[in-house]
């Protein structure tokens, strides 16, 4: 299962002169030792070593008080080691019971300051190289047995794409420039706006800032130092409806420099919006399961494509025999209307005036990021690839990603949906109502905001998605005013859902978030215009059942004895 959320937690870095040389020297020392054994199975055909260094600031305030103030730094070590040959190596997917005996790696934190740093780093690298080698040695045996015992595999592609001479590129990563005290004051003040509502039981204004520097070396000679700065301010509030439903509203702004973040006035306005919305949502009726026409806002459409198309276009999912491979057989065939293009382009730093979180220069396998065309004029054209090739896609397009402690796999960066024949917003709404009437329904839905989503891509479980709608509006065919509802999520299966896409709008919106999957949590962006679907499905969202607070909120409690309304 994969998950996409709008929040994230990061600590995190700084470039260190000579770190790549230290890693390369230790790697060479290990290679020499392995080569000395004389057994080809002892010698890795590829080893990559990466140190991810993050420094970060986390500030949060609630009810006028600072609840978190963390400045810190962490550094992780990752070793990706392959024994065997590029055609068949120790990372090859296992089938049957052996599939449960998989990668044993964990997050390895390593030191970053002090006289002993060199030795401490080399010691950690020694342990990790040795562990990775031993794991690979054991796994290579299982891989070969798997080949002998089981039938021919569905996917004949090799396990690795050698690249020859590695890239050498050392980049400066901008410093993390955060005025911590000023931001603390701002967040305190903004949090009082959230707290002013008597129905808000919990609220927070927060800043998450991180600078990450990755130092990467490999046995092909790659020497990379690169990274990025990520900043996010967010406000969120929670209230409890009379039926026990806990309703939350959350808004975030992402940027790569503090100039791109809203000022105090902007944050106050955002906080007021959040409060108004959570109050309205608390009063809103719970909707019931529905199928019929649905209009997705740009953000909702962006998440929809991330979940429904993006994860299924991740290359490794089309190699594993446990995966649904929804689009593998659709290569070169239409899966969407001809007015839709989809590309994943991690090289884009901004889209219009919005900074994109899914930007990066190199992926976690040392490959330069490049755009990957997934859908062109409605026709499925390709996959996101890492250095683990597909039969028809032998080279990586720079999408091998991970968070520390995981092996990289193909992941999204900036997933962009483009509509070549857009219609105006008013026209889209009219088309929605036309569809409602044509299907003999009394209302349709517009999904304006989403919290995130998740999708299941395997074979045993239903190959379905869930887009977590956080603001959904019922639009009546008879002209009644729009009605905010709560308690439903968008669900469905990919091929059916895509078949019902009718039209797209003009105004592209960006969803910035963090995506969780088997290679960990990675920052991503998705962008899309509003999209109208002839038929989608809503299911009930989970609901809490505790009564609302029994006593009035402090500060709103008069003599302190009154019952809550």
């Amino acid at each position: 299962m994969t998950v996409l959320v709008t929040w994230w937690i990061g600590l995190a870095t700084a470039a260190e002169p000579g770190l790549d040389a230290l890693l390369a020297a230790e790697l060479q020392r290990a290679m020499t030792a392995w080569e000395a054994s004389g057994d080809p199975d002892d010698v890795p055909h590829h080893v990559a070593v990466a140190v991810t260094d993050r420094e970060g600031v986390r500030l949060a305030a609630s009810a006028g008080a600072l609840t978190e103030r963390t400045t810190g730094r962490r550094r992780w070590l990752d070793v990706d080691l392959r024994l065997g040959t590029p055609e068949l190596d120790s990372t090859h997917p296992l089938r049957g019971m052996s599939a449960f005996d998989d990668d044993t790696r964990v997050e390895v934190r390593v030191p970053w300051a002090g006289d002993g740093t060199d030795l401490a780093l080399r010691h950690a690298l020694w342990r990790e190289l040795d562990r990775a080698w031993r794991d690979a040695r054991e796994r290579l045996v299982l891989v070969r047995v798997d080949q002998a015992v089981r039938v021919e595999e569905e996917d004949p592609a090799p396990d690795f794409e050698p690249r020859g001479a590695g890239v050498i590129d050392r980049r400066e990563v901008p410093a993390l420039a955060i005025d911590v005290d000023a931001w603390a004051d701002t967040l305190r003040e903004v949090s009082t706006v959230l707290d002013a509502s008597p129905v808000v039981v919990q609220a927070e204004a927060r800043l998450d800032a991180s600078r990450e520097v990755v130092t990467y070396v490999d046995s092909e000679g790659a020497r990379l130092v690169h990274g990025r700065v990520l900043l996010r301010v967010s406000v969120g509030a929670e209230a409890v409806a009379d039926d026990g439903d806990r309703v939350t509203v959350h808004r975030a702004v992402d940027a790569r420099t503090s100039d791109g973040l809203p000022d105090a006035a902007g944050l106050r306005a955002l906080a007021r919006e959040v409060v108004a919305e959570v109050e309205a949502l608390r009063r809103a009726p719970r909707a019931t399961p529905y199928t019929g026409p649905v209009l997705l806002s740009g953000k909702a459409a962006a998440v929809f494509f991330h979940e429904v198309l993006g994860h299924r276009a991740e290359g490794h999912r089309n190699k594993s025999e446990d995966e649904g491979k929804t689009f593998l057989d659709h290569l070169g065939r239409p899966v969407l209307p001809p007015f839709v293009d989809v590309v994943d382009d991690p090289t884009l730093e901004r889209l219009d005036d919005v900074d994109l979180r899914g930007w990066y220069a190199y992926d976690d396998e040392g490959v330069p990021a490049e755009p990957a065309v997934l859908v062109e004029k409605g026709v499925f054209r390709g996959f996101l690839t890492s250095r683990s090739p597909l039969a028809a896609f032998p080279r990586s397009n720079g999408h091998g990603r991970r968070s520390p402690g995981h092996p990289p796999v193909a992941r999204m960066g900036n997933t962009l949906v483009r509509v070549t024949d857009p219609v105006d917003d008013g026209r889209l709404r009219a088309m929605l109502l036309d569809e409602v009437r044509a299907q003999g329904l009394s209302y349709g839905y517009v999904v304006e905001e989403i919290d995130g989503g998740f999708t299941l891509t395997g074979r045993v479980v239903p190959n379905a998605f869930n887009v977590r709608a956080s603001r959904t509006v019922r639009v009546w065919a008879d002209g009644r005013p729009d009605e905010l509802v709560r308690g439903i999520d968008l669900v469905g299966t990919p091929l059916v859902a895509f078949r019902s896409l009718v039209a797209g709008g003009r105004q592209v919106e960006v969803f910035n978030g963090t995506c969780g999957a088997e290679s960990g949590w990675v920052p991503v962006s998705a962008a899309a215009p509003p999209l109208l679907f002839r038929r989608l499905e809503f299911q009930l969202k989970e609901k809490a059942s505790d009564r609302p607070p029994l006593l009035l909120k402090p500060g709103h409690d008069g003599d302190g004895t009154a019952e809550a309304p």
Partner: protein
Amino acid sequence: MITALVLAWLHGAALAAPDAAPLVEALSEELDRALTLSLPGGPSPYHVRYHLHAVEQVTAEAAFGALREVHATPRHSLGVEVRVGSPAFDNTGFGGWRNGFTAGHLGVDPTPHAVRLVAWRLTDAAYKDAVEQYARKRAQASLPPDHPGDYTLTGPVVADDGAGPPVADRAFVEALAVAVSAAFLDHPGLDLGEVHVGHEVGEAWVLDTEGTRVRRPVAETSVRAVAHVVAPDGQRLTDERLWTVRDPARLDVHALKAEAAAMAADLVALAGAPAFDGEYVGPVLFEDAAAAALFRRLLLPQLEGTPPEIPFDSFLGEIGGAKEGGRLHRRVLPPGWRVVDDPTADPEHPGSFRHDVEGTPARAVVAVEDGIVRDLFTSRVPRRDGIGSNGHARAALGGRAVGGSSLTTVMAPRVRSERALRRRALALAADYGLDHVLVVRRLQHPALRWLGDPAGYHEDVEGLPPPVAVVRLYRDGREEVLRGARFAHVDRWVLRDLVAAGESVTVDHLAPWNGDETGLGPTEGVPCRLTVPTVLVGELEVLPDRSDPGAVPRLPPPTRSTEVRP
């Protein structure tokens, strides 16, 4: 370098300790409101307690003389305990979760209003949970007719035991971790060599609806050095050193580093020692920290006086009630032995306190007289034998308070010299037809065996954990060090088989907050101290530790002299 940093700490690098008084006032208002909570048909609260922790924390981790992590932050936390029903029968003392006890963070610089908000939310949730737990308990538990009740109301306790000293500078804590871990630089062949430092100062308040208002100081600095080594046959050997003090200026960094270096050197040497083979049945001499570990593991649990929870029969099976409570009048040691626990005995020790976490004044307890249990470490949970609280209640925020040890002294009726004790041990061994006696000096810390492993950090042991090493002591004074042994069939009866005692040793340890041996970080837990004599156990069975050996590193370790910089 460390000396300079110590001076910096002493001369004003400290931050201001948080002022908790306005927060206490805000919590008092919410306590008043808490007693008005009600649900249709549900029992009302009869007692609500808040624990406020207002502390400054600095933690650091280092390995091989380099910093891996450091955090410094003010930290305010709130623990909430809601009791519904009556002291005779309430929602407590029954297994399971969501039982009316909870905790939450108050953040960095909470205002009185922000504190009230959190207290309001947590108390509301705790009350609802308490009502449900009360119903579950009423439905499932069949109490005996002489059930002594669930809680003891005592009336208000008002006391001010003061606050902790100013917090040490972050750089001091950081440098401390780095300096001690530099002891491992000469041993890069260690599989793991790291140091954890936890420093916490401030104040803790206990407030309740009876009017209790007790302020307790928080002042603790704990340093733990841990080393692992892999023997040529794959056996993993671990050892650790813990230092815990109230005043960090009392830490002699050079001495700590020297001890850590000696530990690493011993461990590396031990890896090259022969593995223990065969079986040994005979006397075992517990010296040094092993003696303290013996009493910690086998004696102290027998002196904990809070009755265990009644198990909750959940869909996951029974929860709670697994631990046996201490009993009066049971023989736990041979005749003549005495055990005293006095939380007030040494105000300089971080485990010392004048009031426990329930606000009860702490007093010295003579737990064992002439080898028989005469008193127990108790909380306010009533016992059938009528022992009331003696101020030994301990709990994590949001957890159930249970009686536990603090500063404990175990005294033997007769103390022999080291030489005489060894002579006695060898004589006893001869009765078993042995030409040597086994000596153990340290036991492996069960939680730290897993440090750095994917299995995570946990402490779970029955009987005694394995010794770091066993030493065969021969009549001619020769010692043969062996690795890879374990004790078999150990239970509390071993302590009734103490044959002789020697000079005293004093060892600190960190006890789990909740009485269970799980879930602690390397510097987390209740600081405790044990002063015990070296002891000769009449008979123990020692076997080879044949647990699954790990892999032996294939690559040679890095050396300190390798130059790799460009």
